[in-house]
């Protein structure tokens, strides 16, 4: 490998990208982009999931988001972030049982950490503080905790709403999205000194359509608002609403209010296994079922879209 500052290798857990910790972060980003461009990482058979090893670099949450956006641009998801600060503070373990030989290998013989890992038990884990020995064990839960912290004050209402809807925090897609979103929001507030490049990254990543996956039903009063596509694996009951800038797909009964293409995209669609909406909106169009007709349950999946300026619902 020519460049020692960025090492990419495939492991059982997925693609591991190790970033040299001595390099300036901005420069590292630049080089990483070049590397990602020339090595077709997404072709590797790891479902596009990436583990990033930050070494002992101290990375702010904003920078983490930037990193994630960068990977996302290349069709990759940040699955896990590893960091080995020189002074591991609270070593956090969820289970006492640890370390397969595989992760031992990845440890590259860092000894200090091995001690800390299995003994101390703690609930909250800041990812940056996680000693390397935790890498394969960082539960998704702790990742979520982290992201909730990130998504604090300035986070736009979309995220608030998503959280309000009490999404089960198991779903890693949601997790990833939250951070992404977050990065976008923060992007606009970043000072202009030398971080123009970052802004560009934000812009580019926001051109891509994200998809939010929700693995539960939405009940009355629950609302999902998301700048991207929304897929719901469950029902949407009357009184619930789904608002998305992209498409909406419901793998169940849709009986609520949907607004697809909320930013004006007329090509957006609403699809459901059983499409019985109270109201359907696509971009600037609003429709509702005709009055006085007994609502019949459709027997096939249906799709609603705008055709020639009129909303049509047809068999999918």
């Amino acid at each position: 490998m020519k460049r020692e500052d960025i090492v990419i290798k495939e492991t059982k857990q997925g693609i591991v990208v190790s970033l040299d910790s001595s390099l300036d972060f901005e420069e590292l980003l630049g080089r990483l982009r070049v590397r990602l461009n020339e090595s077709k990482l997404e072709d590797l058979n790891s479902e596009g999931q990436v583990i990033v090893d930050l070494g002992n670099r101290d990375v702010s949450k904003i920078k983490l988001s930037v990193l994630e956006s960068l990977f996302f641009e290349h069709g990759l998801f940040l699955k896990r972030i590893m960091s080995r600060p020189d002074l591991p503070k609270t070593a956090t373990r969820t289970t006492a049982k640890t370390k397969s030989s595989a992760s031992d290998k990845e440890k590259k013989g860092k000894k200090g950490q091995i001690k800390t890992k299995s003994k101390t038990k703690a609930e909250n884990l800041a990812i940056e503080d996680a000693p390397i020995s935790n890498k394969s064990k960082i539960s998704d839960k702790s990742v979520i905790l982290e992201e909730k912290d990130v998504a604090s004050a300035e986070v736009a209402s979309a995220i608030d709403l998503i959280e309000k809807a009490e999404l089960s925090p198991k779903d890693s897609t949601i997790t990833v999205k939250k951070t992404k979103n977050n990065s976008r929001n923060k992007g606009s507030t970043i000072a202009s000194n030398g971080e123009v490049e970052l802004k560009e990254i934000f812009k580019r990543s926001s051109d891509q359509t994200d998809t939010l996956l929700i693995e539960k039903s939405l009940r009355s009063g629950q609302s999902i608002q998301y700048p991207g596509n929304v897929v719901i694996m469950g029902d949407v009951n009357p009184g619930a609403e789904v608002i998305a800038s992209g498409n909406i797909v419901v793998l169940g009964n849709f009986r609520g209010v949907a607004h697809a293409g909320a930013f004006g995209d007329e090509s957006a669609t609403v699809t459901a296994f059983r499409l019985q909406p109270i109201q359907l909106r696509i971009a600037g169009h609003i429709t509702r079922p005709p009055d006085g007709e007994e609502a019949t349950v459709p027997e096939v999946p249906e799709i609603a879209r705008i055709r020639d300026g009129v909303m049509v619902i047809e068999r999918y």
Partner: protein
Amino acid sequence: MGEVVVVTSGKGGVGKTTATANIGTALAALGKRVALVDTDIGLRKLDLVLGLENRIVFHLIDVTSGNCQLKQALIRDKRLDGLYFLPAAQTRDKTAVTPEQMRELSAQLKQDFDYVLIDCPAGIEQGFKNAVAGADRALVVTNPEISAVRDADRIIGLLEASEITNSRLIVNRIRPNMVKRGNMLDVEDILDNLRIDLIGVVPEDEKILISTNRGEPAVLDSSSRAGQAFRNIARRILGEEVPFLNLEANEGWRPWFRRIFGLSNAR
């Protein structure tokens, strides 16, 4: 300049929303311009009873927070010309609006409508405070059971504290047969307890359930006795002297049938 009337009860499930929908519809049928406002944010139901759920685009919170104009949020009833409806938000909670905002909204609605009926949520907390903030008078709904009467008493006290003194009482879901047998509080007992003027007694009526499920207020059904009672209440609100329904004589065809065949009143 119209009048803002809050429909309240304290206890849940006594028929506030049904009363609001029916009285409002009856007033509109009598040629008045009426606005119905659902303040039960997060647990809205008035839209269902009116059958207007699928027309909601903007809601009360959109108006109070300046997201839209009041005119945009008002939904015109599909049956009556003078009837408008301002829905509550379902995805928010009672704290999303303040009494000051409600006062402002009520004042604004009063300009355009003869009657503004506010459907109050159950309870005595923020939702209640919001609902009564802009009200000129109140209709207190109760049922002939001590729990509902107790809550109504509490509510009347709170209304007086907010300087709404001309409250009127609606006794809803009364069952004359049970009263006769002494198994249900009768209207006199309730009035004796609450000491406010009665504006109507509404009998229990299956048609209310049917009309609610259909989204068509029962006052539009001329055969519904509860609908008749609500129509009478609307006329009394307009100042007419309307005699109270003779509930016993109106038990449907059965008393008549029994009288013909000389059956004693077995039940």
